[in-house]
């Protein structure tokens, strides 16, 4: 609610209008408005002043003015009585008499306008709807009090006392209405944001279900610790994908609009730096749940087809890119071919290490010393076996890390061999390829089944 206190212009939110009003006050009523201002605050808590209604514009710009006009009527009447200095009272009576007819006319003349303005005004007027009712109340009050304006002072004093109580009551009503409106607004906003969150969650759930992830019911807490790591990573991966899409779109538009090399370099570097983020995320997630990353359940089914040690095969990717990056210089062609070879060799080496790990693990678990009858010895053996097996499982994280390192290094080396423009096209090609794989997954999951 805009507060308008003539005594303290700083708090006047109506701005210039208020200033104009103030000057009017000074010219018309002298010190009258000051006392009026104080009284208004005390009695009505509305901080409105009388002369504003003189400034009422039919277009309803001064929404406060209608209230203020009504308030003026009240305040004039109220403050009159409360003025200790009766000397001024006699001076004011004629003023009041003057103003009465105006007030009488205003409710009728301006109510439609105010009604219009009330409807037209939107956000800042949170209490505009109650103002209508308040105005109506005031109008009702204005009627009888205005009618009695011409009667003797004692009758008027009774009216003023009644009006004061009424005004206070009305003010309290207004405040209560305003507060409840604000509460309602806050509640609705809360509901809206919760609804958004709910739809987002439902979408994620749908996506996760499609990927075949087992969604445990809310009561199942048994694998919450691992599940949290896995689910947290899935969420972060989804976010990373969205960011990647944005970066790629930026890159695509830059390539299509043929921007300069320096600018393109910056965008390309942005994309490659963004790639580092996912490897960092995978590293963190692997510490929590290496099997989730290795399983590839965070990828779509079609991507999982090509899964190797928790991700894609760099050598395969290079094979695809070489054909798409033409034209290439002989040197580039050689470099890329060599790169494909070396990544293939590294992949094979890591695969062999994984096989050795599998074999070693199997041997550890299958190993049972023949013919030992001592139960404690068996238990000790068992525990020893388990401890060894646990140690071997722990090395899986190392393999995943080396595999991701290989992927990162391969991409880095590829960019070293290419020009900026070729790098851009390579990044677009990689993204398009994986997008198609993901689209294929969606189609596959949505296929009609008999």
């Amino acid at each position, binding site marked *: 609610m805009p507060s308008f206190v003539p005594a303290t212009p700083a708090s006047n939110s109506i701005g210039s209008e208020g200033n104009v009003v103030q000057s009017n006050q000074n010219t018309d009523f002298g010190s009258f408005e000051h006392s009026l201002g104080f009284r208004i605050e005390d009695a009505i808590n509305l901080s409105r002043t009388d002369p504003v209604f003189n400034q009422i514009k039919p277009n309803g710009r001064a929404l406060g003015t209608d209230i203020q006009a009504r308030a003026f009527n009240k305040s004039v009447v109220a403050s009159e009585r409360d003025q200790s200095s009766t000397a001024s009272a006699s001076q004011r009576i004629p003023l009041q008499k003057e103003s009465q007819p105006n007030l009488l006319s205003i409710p009728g003349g301006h109510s439609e306008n105010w009604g219009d303005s009330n409807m037209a005004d939107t956000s800042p007027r949170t209490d505009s709807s109650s103002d209508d009712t308040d105005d109506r109340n005031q109008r009702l009050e204005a009627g009888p009090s205005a009618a009695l304006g011409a009667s003797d002072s004692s009758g008027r004093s009774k009216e003023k006392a009644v009006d004061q109580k009424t005004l206070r009551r009305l003010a309290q009503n207004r405040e209560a209405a305003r507060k409840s409106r604000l509460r309602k607004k806050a509640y609705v906003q809360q509901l809206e944001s919760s609804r958004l969150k709910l739809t987002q969650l439902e979408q994620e759930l749908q996506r996760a279900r499609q990927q075949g992830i087992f969604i445990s019911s809310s009561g199942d807490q048994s694998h919450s610790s691992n599940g949290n790591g896995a689910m947290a990573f899935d969420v972060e991966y989804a976010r990373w994908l969205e960011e990647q899409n944005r970066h790629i779109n930026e890159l695509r538009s830059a390539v299509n609009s043929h921007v300069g090399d320096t600018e393109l370099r910056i965008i390309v570097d942005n994309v490659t730096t963004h790639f580092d983020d996912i490897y960092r995320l995978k590293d963190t997630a692997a510490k929590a749940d290496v099997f989730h990353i290795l399983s590839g359940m965070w990828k779509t089914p079609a991507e999982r087809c090509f899964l190797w040690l928790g991700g894609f095969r760099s050598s395969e990717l290079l094979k695809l890119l070489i054909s798409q990056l033409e034209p290439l210089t002989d040197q580039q062609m050689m470099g890329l071919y*060599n*790169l494909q070879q*070396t*990544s293939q*060799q*590294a992949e*094979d*080496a*890591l695969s*062999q*290490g*994984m096989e*050795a*790990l599998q074999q*070693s693990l199997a041997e550890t678990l299958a190993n049972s010393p023949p013919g030992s009858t001592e139960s404690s010895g068996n238990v000790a053996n068992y525990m020893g076996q388990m401890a060894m097996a646990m*140690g*071997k499982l722990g*090395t899986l994280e*190392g*393999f995943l*890390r*080396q595999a991701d*390192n*290989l992927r990162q*290094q*391969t991409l*880095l*080396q590829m960019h*070293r061999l290419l020009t900026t423009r070729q790098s851009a096209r390579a990044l677009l090609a990689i993204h398009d390829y994986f997008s198609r794989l993901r689209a294929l997954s969606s189609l596959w999951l949505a296929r009609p089944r008999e």
Partner: protein
Amino acid sequence: MDRVRELASKKAAVIFTKSSCCMCHSIKSLFYELGASPAIHELDHEASGREMEWALRNLGCTPSVPAVFIGGRFIGSAKDVISYHVDGSLKQMLIDAKAIWF
């Protein structure tokens, strides 16, 4: 440390491993694939294995195995070796140290 240095300088390509380490197996496979025949020293079968492991760790090798030396010079652990391999410098180092010829 002396033992490490001594063994590392005996052959062009030397790898310190542990028999239980599967990542060591990967790095060994990579060297064989490149045509090198590195000298393999398993720390868990060496007399001063524990001191050697400590010495390797002091060199900055984490994890301590596999630790790769080429031409007597410490190259690094699995991560470094793979990185050098990808950018082509591993092969060059092996050629320079005469561990391989092409």
